[in-house]
């Protein structure tokens, strides 16, 4: 009889633990952000990047907990939904990496690529400021 019941049975204890760990992790995230880490006397490491990666790591951990417990991925009988969820992030990663492959190598061959010009476009002529071209 139990076999025919859909889904998993929620446990209040687990839910409580999940909630507490999410709150702790978000406090940790804010903590990392507030830490004046970049002022450390270390120059062989991009500390801004380290900080961002730490924060990202906490966010990913929180996302994992939300998906696993609140959305119930951990209890799935077939792993289908988990596959969907991971595929998702795989596609997003592709998008991110390839867009970065564009922007971070612009000008690698021809430095004039990187230069951003700054002027008002006549396309938005309605602002009336279109004449103030400053090349």
């Amino acid at each position, binding site marked *: 009889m139990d076999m025919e019941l859909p889904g998993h049975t929620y446990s209040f204890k687990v839910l409580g633990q999940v909630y507490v760990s999410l709150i702790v992790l978000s406090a940790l995230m804010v903590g990392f952000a507030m830490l004046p880490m970049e002022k450390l006397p270390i120059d062989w490491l991009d500390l801004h990047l380290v900080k961002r990666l730490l924060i990202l790591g906490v966010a990913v951990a929180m996302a994992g907990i939300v998906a696993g417990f609140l959305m119930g991925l951990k209890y799935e009988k077939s792993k289908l939904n988990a596959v969907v969820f991971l595929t998702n992030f795989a596609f997003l990663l592709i998008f991110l990496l390839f867009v970065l492959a564009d922007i971070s190598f612009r000008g690698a061959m*021809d430095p004039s690529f990187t230069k951003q*010009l700054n002027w008002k*476009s006549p396309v938005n002529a309605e602002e009336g400021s*279109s004449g103030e071209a400053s*090349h």
Partner: protein
Amino acid sequence: MDTTKSFWLPEKASTFADAVDFGFNLYYWISVFFFVLIVFLMAWFVVRYIRRRPDQLASAQITHNTLLETTWTAIPLLIVMGLFVLGMKGYWNMRVAPSNAMQIDVTGRKWAWSFDYPKEGISNDTLVVPVHQPIRLRMTSVDVIHSFFIPAFRTKADVIPGRYHSLWFEATKTGVFQVFCTQYCGTNHSYMWTAVKVVTAEEYAAWLEAASDPSKGKTPEEFGEILYSKKGCVACHSVDGSVGIGPTWKGIWGTEVPLEGGGEAIVNEAYAKQSMMEPASQVVKGFQPIMPPFQGVLSDKEVDALTAYIRSLK
């Protein structure tokens, strides 16, 4: 008749053309081979195994053949990897200009090109370049994305607002070659043409000298008429009275025109100059405020010449 023009490809006039045409032709014959193979097999099977009785069944059911399928996975894979290397080499060569390249600035606007020779201070509507000299174009647009395409040189690059994009080439023979805009840019996209004039080094030097002062020996009206087509006014303003994207210039001088948003203006020197520098400020009623500003594009002398030309159009 140009002998380098073939059934598939236009004439060749740059150092890239041979490599690109080689890639095209190589791939073309590979395609022809596969296309003929498929169509021949298809036609042969259809003729050979056509159903003769209504209840006829297939004479064999062949569900798969791993060797065959692996073969026709592997062979195309090898071919395309070869093509990739070929394309990549050619492309990187097209992107890196040699260090002795001569730089010319290109500006795209709706719907005209202008070419600036920074060292000589020349601005022109056609690209004049010496033969056998690498040329690097530094390109930008003042409104929307355009694309600069010279079929005979087999090269092309988008011209992007807010940023420079570059392109280089080395012409291999003299002549006049077509330039197209290939990124859709609005009403007169298909009129946004110009030409590359490839000349010998001596002719180029002579041209530079003459071009440094285009108004020499001309009346303001004559110079204005040249500017009218050179600066792209012709795309929107007619001189025969027909209504284009902008008002016609014929007979407009001295008249009082109603303005968008109320009011009127008399077409005089001040109004003409204002309309060239800040077109959006006083648009004639019934027209769109789409004219690009010519602030910094036209010199005072050129403005005067254009004004004189408009005045002469009775």
